[in-house]
């Protein structure tokens, strides 16, 4: 602090009051009051010497003159010290050496006395100056440390980025007597987060300098090689997480906003500000993670609540509908309850499947699967839906095994078969075909429906896809989206096309070569 005050335009009188002897000594120059004091020391000592001369003799008096010399050199510095040394030599010569009251030197020893007094003044003032400088440096460094500690403790208690930015600017402005501004990235651009005292918009030059500092590692702006036309100098707040913000500093009419003597402390402040920003960033990421985790937990519990809690009443409804014995009057009502309950149940399944895909909550459990097993299980589960359809299974029993998730594959097949069963008036004809091709094993479900409108084969797997000119109704519109979601989660691809052999569509799942296990390799 003391150093700061000395460099600023503080009135001399105030300094004197606080440090009566110190300030001038530090500069080594000396003011007229210092010389007056020195003269007074010499006069007092001369008077004292004259008083004791009769008892001790004039030869010993020269030693006494060391006292004012050391005093002046210690208290006032080099030049008043030397002046006192010379004055002391002259006074000794004039008042004590014979002939009295004349500046004549008889004895070379007396010349040595005067010289020694001057030398003592020089050495003493140097030593005292050094001690004083050390003390002062210690005091300054203690004050700087205290200021930095205060800065750190202030920043550490702030909850968010805007308040931190405001505090950094206010503290820098106060400590270094400058204007301070802090810019932090917001999306793609660098925006003013805070300034002290409140600054207006930055000029284009200043913005460019801030950008340069942000994207580089070094300060930019006035007084630097990069964009010196800016009025501000910007320092990047660069830590282990990258550059988090830039701190700008301006002092009108100077290109060195921070005096070189204070750069060390300023560097420290920039470093602490960077750490404060790093802490905020880490905290923000932790909060974000916690929020994500909470959302995941909610989604999982919602899924399981749909899975269990909503299915329970549905089970009761289904069982009750099946327990009803329809008579001629209510036969239609009973059958409506039964079929709608079944539809509702399928809708639940679709919704749950889809939310699992969206939530990325598909925990895959891969195992070797025989497509013969997969097809038979799907047909078995859908036997009620497929009642009245003719199903031709053309899946050779010697296809390679596929490594995939049995449950997801089961749902894929059920959805594809369910989709195919909706087409073809009267008795829908469904073909299940497995083939070994260059691109892997292809499992297709073919129907005899109206087929897919030209050019729309690709979007049929989109959610709620309603194809023009088709009568694909009755389902939830989610079945094929679930097929695609499950297949992609397992690394399989899906294809939709029109049947080459006449009307109808073909939906395929392709198991890539990497998922195939040749049966010979096992057991």
């Amino acid at each position, binding site marked *: 602090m003391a150093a700061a005050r000395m460099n600023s335009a503080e009135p001399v009188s105030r300094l004197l009051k606080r440090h009566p002897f110190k300030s001038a000594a530090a500069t080594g120059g000396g003011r007229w009051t210092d010389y007056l004091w020195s003269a007074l020391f010499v006069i007092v000592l001369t008077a004292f010497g004259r008083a004791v001369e009769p008892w001790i003799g004039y030869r010993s008096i020269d030693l006494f003159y060391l006292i004012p010399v050391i005093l002046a050199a210690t208290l006032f510095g080099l030049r008043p010290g030397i002046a006192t040394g010379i004055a002391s030599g002259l006074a000794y010569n004039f008042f004590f050496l014979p002939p009295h009251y004349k500046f004549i030197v008889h004895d070379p020893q007396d010349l040595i006395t005067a010289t020694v007094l001057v030398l003592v003044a020089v050495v003493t003032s140097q030593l005292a100056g050094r001690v004083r400088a050390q003390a002062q440096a210690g005091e300054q460094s203690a004050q700087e440390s205290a200021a930095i500690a205060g800065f750190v403790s202030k920043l550490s208690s702030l909850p968010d980025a805007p308040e931190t930015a405001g505090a950094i600017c206010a503290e820098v402005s106060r400590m270094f007597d400058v204007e301070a501004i802090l810019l932090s990235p917001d999306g793609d651009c660098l925006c003013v987060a805070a300034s002290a005292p409140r600054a207006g918009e930055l000029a284009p030059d200043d913005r460019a300098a801030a950008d340069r500092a942000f994207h580089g590692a070094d300060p930019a702006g006035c007084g630097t090689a990069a964009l010196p036309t800016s009025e501000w100098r910007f320092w990047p707040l660069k830590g282990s997480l990258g550059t988090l913000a830039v701190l700008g500093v301006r002092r009108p009419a100077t290109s060195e906003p921070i005096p070189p003597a204070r750069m060390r402390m300023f560097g420290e402040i920039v470093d602490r500000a960077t750490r404060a920003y790093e802490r905020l960033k880490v905290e923000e990421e932790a909060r974000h993670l916690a929020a994500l985790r909470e959302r995941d937990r909610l989604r999982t519990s919602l899924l399981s609540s749909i*899975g*269990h809690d909503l*299915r*329970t*009443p*549905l*089970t*009761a409804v*289904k*069982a*009750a509908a*099946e*327990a009803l014995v329809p008579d001629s009057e209510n036969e239609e009502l009973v059958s409506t309850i039964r079929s709608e*309950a079944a539809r509702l*149940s399928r809708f639940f*399944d679709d919704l749950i499947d889809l939310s699992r895909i969206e939530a990325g909550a598909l925990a895959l*459990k891969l*195992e*070797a*699967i*025989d497509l*013969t*097993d*997969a097809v*038979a*299980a799907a047909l*078995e589960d859908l036997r*009620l839906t497929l009642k009245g359809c003719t199903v031709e*299974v*053309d*899946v*050779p*029993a010697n296809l390679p*095994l596929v490594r995939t*998730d*049995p*449950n997801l*594959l*089961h749902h894929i097949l059920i959805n594809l078969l369910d989709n195919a069963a909706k087409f073809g008036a009267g008795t829908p004809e469904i073909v299940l075909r497995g083939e070994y091709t260059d691109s892997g094993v292809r499992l297709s479900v073919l129907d005899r429906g109206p087929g897919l409108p030209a050019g729309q084969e690709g979007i049929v797997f989109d959610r709620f896809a309603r194809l023009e000119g088709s009568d694909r109704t009755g389902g939830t519109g989610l079945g094929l989206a679930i097929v695609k979601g499950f297949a992609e989660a397992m690394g399989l691809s899906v294809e939709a096309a029109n049947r080459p052999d006449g009307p109808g569509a073909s939906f395929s799942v392709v198991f890539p070569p990497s998922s195939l*296990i040749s*049966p010979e*390799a*096992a*057991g």
Partner: protein
Amino acid sequence: MRSPPLILVVDDEPAIRRLICRALELNGYATCEAGEAAEALGRINGDPPDLVLLDLGLPDRDGMELLPRLRERGAAVLVLTARDESAEKVAALDSGADDYVTKPFDTDELLARVRTCLRHRQAAFGGTDRVALGDVVIDLDLRRVSRGAEEIHLTPKEYDLLAELARHAGRLLTHAHLLRAVWGPAHQDDIEYLRVIVRALRRKLEPNPAAPTLIRNEPGVGYRLELPVP
């Protein structure tokens, strides 16, 4: 087994319990019910039922903990479970459940499973050495499999697997159970072995190996040997 067979229905939902009991009674079974694990245990200790329909989500205890106790008392167990809980199904089967039914279930499907479970239990009591699958007969005593008068030649692994399935005919055996029984505990995750042998067995036993009717697979769970409905 008493006649009619007594079935204990354990489910915390009174509505579902009542409906299941009603459907069972309409089909000639005697029923009793329990809404909690403690109540179910009380029932078991008194007058053990022939079959327990067990919902795993009970308010006071995990239904899974009840399984060993139920098995001890000699009751067959049919687990009621939510869809897509393969791990839960496998765990229940490995703890001694005979089979499972997925909620929401069709009443007809539930009744079919009940019949299979009871038949399986009867077969287990009868200690039968001969299992007939249509025209295929497995003689567990002589280690012989034949179709009509003609013997079907099986490799040792094929026979071991078929015998394990036949000893528990109608019951769903998990992949791990079969692998342990035939290949030993070290191979209980090597499902490929199982797939290959099942394929070979189907080629020798099934009328149409591409559309199997004897050896059925439950995706992600296990195999069962289907007993023809008498």
